[in-house]
């Protein structure tokens, strides 16, 4: 049926830390410890987690913006890991990125037309007229006017700038768009416009999204499938509805509980999480979440839980995933 657009297998990325002493052992930041997932054509895949969990590292590695230690990233069947800059160049039209900050990601010295047309330089065989036509098309599909191509980024508001960034990602007609927190810098009323735009573009062009966000409500609105990351590993993955209805990892459950609810009435009773995300500079035995987990037991300290199915495609890495639903009930 639908083909796989992105296949990530066992992706590992460890950043070496500067040595404190000349002969001390090399230490690392363990940013990604073997992440695997697949995204089918025309669907949206959400990646959720707190800061420092490796979400953005994952995006950079999928986009081949930095060297990967090991593992494989296949986009439309083409391996991306280990390719040189010039080998990657013709492939880049198939995967594009939208960044978080629409103020930092658009060059203030270039006109919108030039910014949006820039990815086309990876495609050699386009005439000047064709380029101009594509810019016009893509600007109108994100709700901007063709005449906006003459303007500069400072003439636009935050939401409009993010539309420009989306237009730039769309112009090569990519199969995959990696969006790293594309709406978190925007106001609520503007955020809704951009989210709806992303959905419409998917219906219209059949783009596939890898959507990175810390906002669980946004992910629920946009994504078919999702993965929850904690300290460089996927701890839960599955269809969005399944995860929201029956979280099978205590971390997912607590994240969902922590989202403040805009409704009248008193505070909900919920499980709180102590402590912050621990550093990732040590490799430890057992589950990465053991120190903060309200249901951690001896087994969690000695044995690293593997991802296992809790029903269909819904997988979670917890020894006691069947007990998560009882959390906070007693």
């Amino acid at each position: 049926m639908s083909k796989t657009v992105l296949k990530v297998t066992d992706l590992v990325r460890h950043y070496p830390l500067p040595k404190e002493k000349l002969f001390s052992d090399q230490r690392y930041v363990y940013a990604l410890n073997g992440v695997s997932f697949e995204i089918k054509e025309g669907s949206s895949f959400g990646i959720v987690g707190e800061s420092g969990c490796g979400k953005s590292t994952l995006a950079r590695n999928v986009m081949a913006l930095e060297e990967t230690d090991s593992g494989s990233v296949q986009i439309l069947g083409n391996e991306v890991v280990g390719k040189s800059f010039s080998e990657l160049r013709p492939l880049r039209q198939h995967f594009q990125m939208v960044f978080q900050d629409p103020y930092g990601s658009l060059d203030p010295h270039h006109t919108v037309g030039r910014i949006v047309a820039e990815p086309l330089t990876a495609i050699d065989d386009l005439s000047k007229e064709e380029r101009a036509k594509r810019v016009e098309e893509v600007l109108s599909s994100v709700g901007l006017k063709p005449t906006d191509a003459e303007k500069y980024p400072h003439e636009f508001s935050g939401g409009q700038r993010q539309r420009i960034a989306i237009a730039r990602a769309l112009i090569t007609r990519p199969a995959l768009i990696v969006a790293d927190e594309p709406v978190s810098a925007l106001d609520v009323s503007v955020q809704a416009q951009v989210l709806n735009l992303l959905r419409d573009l998917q219906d219209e062009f059949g783009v596939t999204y890898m959507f990175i966000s810390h906002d669980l409500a946004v992910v629920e609105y946009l994504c078919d499938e999702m993965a929850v990351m904690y300290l460089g590993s996927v701890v839960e993955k599955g269809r969005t509805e399944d995860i929201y209805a029956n979280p099978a990892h205590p971390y997912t459950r607590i994240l969902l509980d922590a989202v403040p609810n805009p409704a009248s009435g008193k505070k909900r009773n919920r499980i709180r999480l102590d402590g912050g995300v621990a550093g990732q500079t040590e490799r430890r035995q057992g589950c990465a979440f053991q120190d903060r987990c309200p249901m951690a037991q001896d087994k969690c300290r000695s044995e690293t839980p593997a991802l296992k199915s809790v029903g269909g495609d819904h997988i979670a890495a917890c020894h006691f995933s069947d007990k998560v639903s009882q959390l906070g009930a007693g």
Partner: protein
Amino acid sequence: MLLLDVENLNVDLSTAKGPARAVRNLNIQLEKGETLGIVGESGCGKSMTALALMGLLPDNGTATGAIRLGGENLLDKSEAEMCRIRGNRIAMIFQEPMTSLNPVHTIGRQIMEPLRLHRGLDKKDAMEEVVRLLDRVGIPNPSERVRNYPHQLSGGQRQRVMIALALSCAPDILIADEPTTALDVTIQDQILDLIQTLVEEEGMSLVLISHDLGVIAENTQKVVVMYGGTVVESGNTDKIFDELTHPYTQGLFAAMPKVGMGRNKRLTTIPGTVPDLVNLPKGCTFTDRCPIATDACRDTVPAIQDMSSTHQVACHHMQNAITARETGGLYK
């Protein structure tokens, strides 16, 4: 008794394009021990209100009206007098703890500063008090942490230090301007819980400023919704979220993705963007984006009307807005 009474506060910022009217005719009353939320999008004037209360407006800003703290108008005070009030009777927690702490001083030294200045403690006593405060805000090993620099702490811990700093002189009013926006949800939860507990135990009043309706709903007793520099809706938090009435508030609530709403519904959007504060419409600031606006909205500023004794709305077409709310919403 009435602790804080803000009457007809106007804040103008002079810009190259002319005066930007950041806050217009703002009225706020705050009792002792009460918690008030100010909610709105960027540019609605919520941070400028906070800065005006603290007497910390930027050089191009001027405030008129009255801000009465226990009967004294803060706008009449000299800078020297404000220095004795600021940090002592009104304290503030800022959004980004990394930029509001001084990176070249230890956190102990920074928290000591108001203690020595306002409470006249000597170095030794001040340091003891710092350790007690850090312990109070839940920093582990406070006696060792006092020697740390801000970069040695995580974002959540830095915000705890900011809270300790704000608490140091037991202020009457704590102003928290987006205290958790830069933090993860689980940390946000911890910090809001801490602020809530401290406010209750110390009997302080709290002004909590946020763009997040959820944060406001769960942490305040009264709420004020601002748009384009003015209050469009205000009331008691425990009721208002069932009866959001002003077209802007209805739209803001509908535009917000909420956990549990699923993927089948489409988010409603408010067309257009926030108004330019330099060229505000003569009448209601929401006119250009409002689905039920008429000529009257464009020309005359709507008066604040009572929906009930604890719920006020500033809209010419309040009845239409109520009807629309009850029949499926204004935004289709």
